[in-house]
């Protein structure tokens, strides 16, 4: 009977830890391949040691990875890969019954320089972590957050941005325009005689008018314009990088788009018009975005006073103010 020898703790831990560990030398030959790597790759260390990593695993992204390893040798510095940009290094199956659409093990890798006594890098040690769970939770969280954001930013009836979101957008654009001295224009619009639609045809008809007008406004905007439902039948449009001249052109286009074609649903045909008020940020006396909304509202009031179905640009010395 031989005497019991104490186990080599470090060997045991490196081999059995729940992470992939493998080591390559300057010629990319494997000098260590732990149990995690054996189990998931189905390849035993004894068949791999001394072999070139890329010969053994031709499916690895050779050009990129060889370069990365070379960089560790030259810079004597850590290097990393993350599942968020590069889902995996080795295509290993994962152990999750519920996959959330993830087809194989997601991996985070660290490449560490292993220096000899002279301080030169002799090996590069890879550690590979299974982050499949994290990636699935992260994806679920991202999807959910996205969904919540959509819901919380949109108006249920018209699917336009809601008041909170459009004000937030205006507030941001106001700060940006002020900071960089860019122009910014705001349009406030209101459906003329909307109450009559409701009174005559009922609220369901009113809702349908709102939906149709919303779609028509939206389809006549430019890419950078942001439209939101501001109140019952009021719409707010934020026009970054645009002055009142461009704002007036857009307002006329919107007004015409609504006026030129009756709103039709079922066998009801309604002639609908909108009135609009336009104002722009003036560097010398625009305090905050609320002031812009107030001015657009005054200009809108002017449009209503002058007979509706028109667009008015706010002027500070307007006698009506």
């Amino acid at each position, binding site marked *: 009977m031989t005497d019991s020898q104490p186990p080599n703790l470090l060997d045991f831990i490196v081999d059995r830890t729940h992470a992939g560990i493998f080591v390559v030398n300057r010629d990319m030959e494997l000098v260590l391949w732990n149990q995690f790597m054996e189990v998931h790759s189905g390849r035993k260390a004894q068949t791999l040691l001394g072999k070139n990593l890329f010969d053994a695993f031709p499916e690895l992204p050779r*050009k*990129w990875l*060889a*370069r990365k390893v*070379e*960089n560790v040798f*030259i*810079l*004597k*510095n*850590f*290097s*990393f*890969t*993350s599942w*968020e*940009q*590069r889902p995996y290094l080795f295509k290993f199956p994962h152990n999750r019954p519920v996959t959330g659409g993830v087809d194989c093990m997601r991996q*985070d890798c*660290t490449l560490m320089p292993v220096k000899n006594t002279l301080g030169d890098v002799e090996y590069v040690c890879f550690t590979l972590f299974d982050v499949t769970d994290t990636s699935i939770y992260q994806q679920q969280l991202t999807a959910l957050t996205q969904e919540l954001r959509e819901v919380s930013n949109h108006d249920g009836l018209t699917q336009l941005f809601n008041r909170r979101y459009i004000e937030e957008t205006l507030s941001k654009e106001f700060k*940006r325009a002020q900071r*960089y001295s860019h122009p910014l224009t705001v349009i406030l619009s209101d459906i003329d005689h909307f109450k009559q639609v409701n009174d005559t045809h009922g609220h369901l008809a009113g809702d349908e008018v709102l939906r149709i007008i919303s779609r028509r406004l939206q389809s006549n905007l430019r890419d950078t314009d942001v439209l939101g439902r501001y109140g019952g039948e009021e719409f707010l449009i934020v026009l970054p990088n645009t002055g009142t001249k461009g704002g007036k052109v857009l307002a006329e286009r919107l007004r015409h788009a609504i006026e030129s074609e009756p709103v039709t649903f079922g066998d009801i045909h309604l002639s609908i018009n909108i009135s609009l008020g336009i104002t722009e940020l003036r560097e010398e006396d625009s305090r905050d975005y609320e002031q812009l909304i107030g001015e657009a509202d005054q200009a809108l009031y002017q449009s209503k006073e002058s007979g509706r179905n028109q667009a008015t640009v706010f002027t500070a010395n307007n006698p009506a103010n």
Partner: protein
Amino acid sequence: MSVQPYNEDQTDALQEVANIAMGQAGDSLARILDNFVTLSVPRIRQIAIHELVDTVTTMVGDEEEVSAVRQAFYNSLRGEAIVIFTQSGADELAELLGYDCELDAAIEQELLLEVGNLLVGAILSGISETLGTEVGFSAPSLMAERTPLYQVLAPDQLSWQHALLVEVNFSVEKHRFKSHLLMFMTEETIETLRSILDEFMDDF
């Protein structure tokens, strides 16, 4: 605990150490990229967090939208480095770093992380090697992409009170690829580094 700024000798020593580190880094980066690489002489400043946005804005320029990578380092030097990229020039760097595929968002991110890691690793390894200390690194992560600078460095988003600002312009021959490096260190580390610098000077 309030932190005394480094005195003139300490700052000089740190500047010297950083110069050596960046010299080595430039050499290694040139070998890696197989191109002539210019690393500017690092400008080092120690600043309090409330000065941060203004100082960095002056450095980077007001108009810019930036991308930023953060990376923690640990051991005798502890803290976090942030690399700010003003122009991505990602397609050119992709080629230099051995990417031969179409550039998509993930690859652009990976490139920023890669270059961030290279720069942080180069300067910190250089400094710690010169000073005879050890330093380890956590994986870098993306802090911001094409975001106005003042949003990236909102003081209430940062948990650090003191920053060692190391301004390094990194450019590759014919390509303009600018980046700035910020190092945030614990107060403890600022003190550790102070005593290491003192010892370092005694050796001369």
